[in-house]
């Protein structure tokens, strides 16, 4: 890539208030905007537009069929008092609190193992990533079978070691752990990110640490973790956001097709986005659902901001001063 060097002003020369850009810099900027244009157009058309529309709709009574009717902050007041909103939000936060640390820990463990595999690493990397390719609906159905209390593979496995497995899909206390178990199916993306980060840690750092007498744990704690902290932070943020937006697999498992509505569903499996979807498309409360969407947006933004703030203390990026 071409780079531009700007010569310092000659001693005694007048320093202009605003530095003039060279023709090359201007040309580069134009190219940059050109390459950014598809994303900007896409964002404005498919994200910013709908976001502004939903912000407006959240202030209305709107059923999709009839024109929206302005109601001010009524939807927000109603959702603050809605026990279903509190319950679904509680379930979602509970899931996030279980899912994110587990995914990060297990993925890191797997990535560390993969790093040691050697020549077969490519094969195992593919194997770990394959489940990510499974459609979410298929995953939901698959885990309904695996989590079957009487004949599911998981409880059969537990029975082998003398444990009477729980009713994963019907006991309210076990529904969420069952969903978390299912969610671990697709941790392949996180494993691949960690593996890439681990492979980028310079070997000389480990060698220097060893010479200084650092053991395996000390090398992991003081070399590996800081060097992959950027990847850890990235996966923390994206997994948290994805968890707070959990929908497809759980909807398939517990809510299915409303036209048949034969599946058992549990309060314990009502995630926030599922409740939002029901309000929007089954009960036709699109204005209320829009308010729910904005509440979730604010929650996610708040959590992400806290994470970013904390990251300044714990995350090391190569090239920055420490």
């Amino acid at each position: 890539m071409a780079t531009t060097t700007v010569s310092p002003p000659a001693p005694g020369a007048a320093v202009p208030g605003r530095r003039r850009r060279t023709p090359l810099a201007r040309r580069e900027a134009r190219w940059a905007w050109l390459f950014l244009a598809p994303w900007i157009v896409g964002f404005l058309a498919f994200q910013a537009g709908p976001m502004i529309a939903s912000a407006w709709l959240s202030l209305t009574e709107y059923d999709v069929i009839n024109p929206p009717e302005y109601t001010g902050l009524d939807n927000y007041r109603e959702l603050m008092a809605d026990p279903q909103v509190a319950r679904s939000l509680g379930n979602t936060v509970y899931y996030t609190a279980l899912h994110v640390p587990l995914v990060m820990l297990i993925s890191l463990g797997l990535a560390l193992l993969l790093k040691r595999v050697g020549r077969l690493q490519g094969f195992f990397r593919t194997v770990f990533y394959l489940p990510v390719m499974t459609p979410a609906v298929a995953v939901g159905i698959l885990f309904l079978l695996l989590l079957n209390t009487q004949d599911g593979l998981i409880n059969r496995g537990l029975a082998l070691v003398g444990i009477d497995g729980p009713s994963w899909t019907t006991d309210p206390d076990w529904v969420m752990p069952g969903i978390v178990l299912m969610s671990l199916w697709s941790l392949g993306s996180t494993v691949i990110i960690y593996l890439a980060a681990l492979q980028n840690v310079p070997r000389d750092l480990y060698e220097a640490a060893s010479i200084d007498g650092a053991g395996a744990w000390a090398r992991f704690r003081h070399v590996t973790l800081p060097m992959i902290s950027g990847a850890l932070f990235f996966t923390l943020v994206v997994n948290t956001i994805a968890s707070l937006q959990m929908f497809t697999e759980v909807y398939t498992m517990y809510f299915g097709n409303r036209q048949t509505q034969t599946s058992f569903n549990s309060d314990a499996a009502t995630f926030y986005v599922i409740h939002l979807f029901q309000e929007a498309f089954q009960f036709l409360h699109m204005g209320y659902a829009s308010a729910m969407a904005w509440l979730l947006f604010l929650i996610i933004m708040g959590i992400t901001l806290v994470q970013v703030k904390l990251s300044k203390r714990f995350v090391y990026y190569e090239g920055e001063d420490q």
Partner: protein
Amino acid sequence: MSRKLRATALAGVLALAVSGCGGVGGGDDEAGGTATRGTLTTMGFGLSDEIATTRVDAFKRDHPDVELKITEGAFDEQQFLSAVAAGNPPDLVYMDRKLIGTYATRGSIQPLTDCVDEQGIDMGQYRQAARDQVTLDGTVYGIPEFSQVRVLYLNEALLKQAGMTADDVDLADWAGLPALNAKLAKVSGGKLTRIGIDPKIPEFLPMWAKANGVDMISPDGRTAKLDDPRVVEALTTGLKLIQDQGGFGRFKSFRDTFDFFGAQNPLVKNQIVAWPMEEWFLNQAAKNSPKAELVVKPFVDRQGKPLTMSSGQAWVITKGAKNPDAACAFVKQMTATDTWFAAAKARADARKAAGQPFTGVWTGNLNADKKIFDELYQPTGNKRFDDAVATIRAAQDVAFAMPASPAGAEFDKAWYDAVNRVLAGQEQPAPALARAQREATAALDKAAK
């Protein structure tokens, strides 16, 4: 006239010209109805079998000037609402009848009063239960198709093992059901290996409540009766049958392993003795396990009188439909007696070619059902299945349906959630249904505003 208004008027005229649709009653066709031409779009319907294709072919044959565009697939609320919001709804939508009340109240589907009058559709030909589900406040919003009813299936081989006959299974005697269930169910090594009686709740709770003398919602679909003691008693009865078989977790897990559509169905595998279920299982049993010792009895109320719950599909014409005349002609022909008969004949021929028995088609149209069973249906020679067909035919005449309701979806959710909380052991039947009553009433009141 302002420029904007002129442009709008011009666009409207052009749209009408292009679609070839000048409004309802554009002239007479050969059959004496209104002329139909232009494009006709549908949503929620599929051409999955001969029952669908034969009827669609009949419409195409009789209406060559109509270009029929069928977007195949089951009805999807999100897809439908998106089309409505975009101002581009299909002309016709095929949906579960229980959804009609909600969409009618919101004005997304048209009243069919003019359609029925102008096409001369005889609403009396459809079964009463089906009519109830497509009628809100006396106005027809849909033309019904099919009538699925529930009957009691019994595995007589297992009854014999327990020293009983089908006559010993008396669903009218609620007090005796737990003892009967205990004799029939089989639990070994802590695992449920055979279900005695499956009450099929939550799905069939309205039928158990009706058997106990109460409707869960008023006939006009506007007043919930979920906290009625008779509904509570119905739920308590069903719950006990499940709890006595190891609790809902074990019960459901075992039931989830059943394959009702295959040769290894629970009847063949002796996994269940007595269960109410839709009539379609008879077709599957006749096809996959003709030698099974199956007995079909009517579901009965507490006085022993047969009753059943009916459900099915309906065609609705959307608000903003571009070709309502063709849509109306289509629904008339799709649900007409002769069209149904032709479709049933195609199925009977297909079954014969495959060496499988034909057990009838339940159309929702009284005249069509009569013609099919009087002129087309042939007893299979297997007395069990022939008796079963007769039982189902009789059940069609005593069917009730959950009426159209302006907040049908929320009403259903309220009582489904209540039953699920009870089954999961989170709540007792009375408080669960009391909460459901509050939730359903709030939704119904809101919808009424």
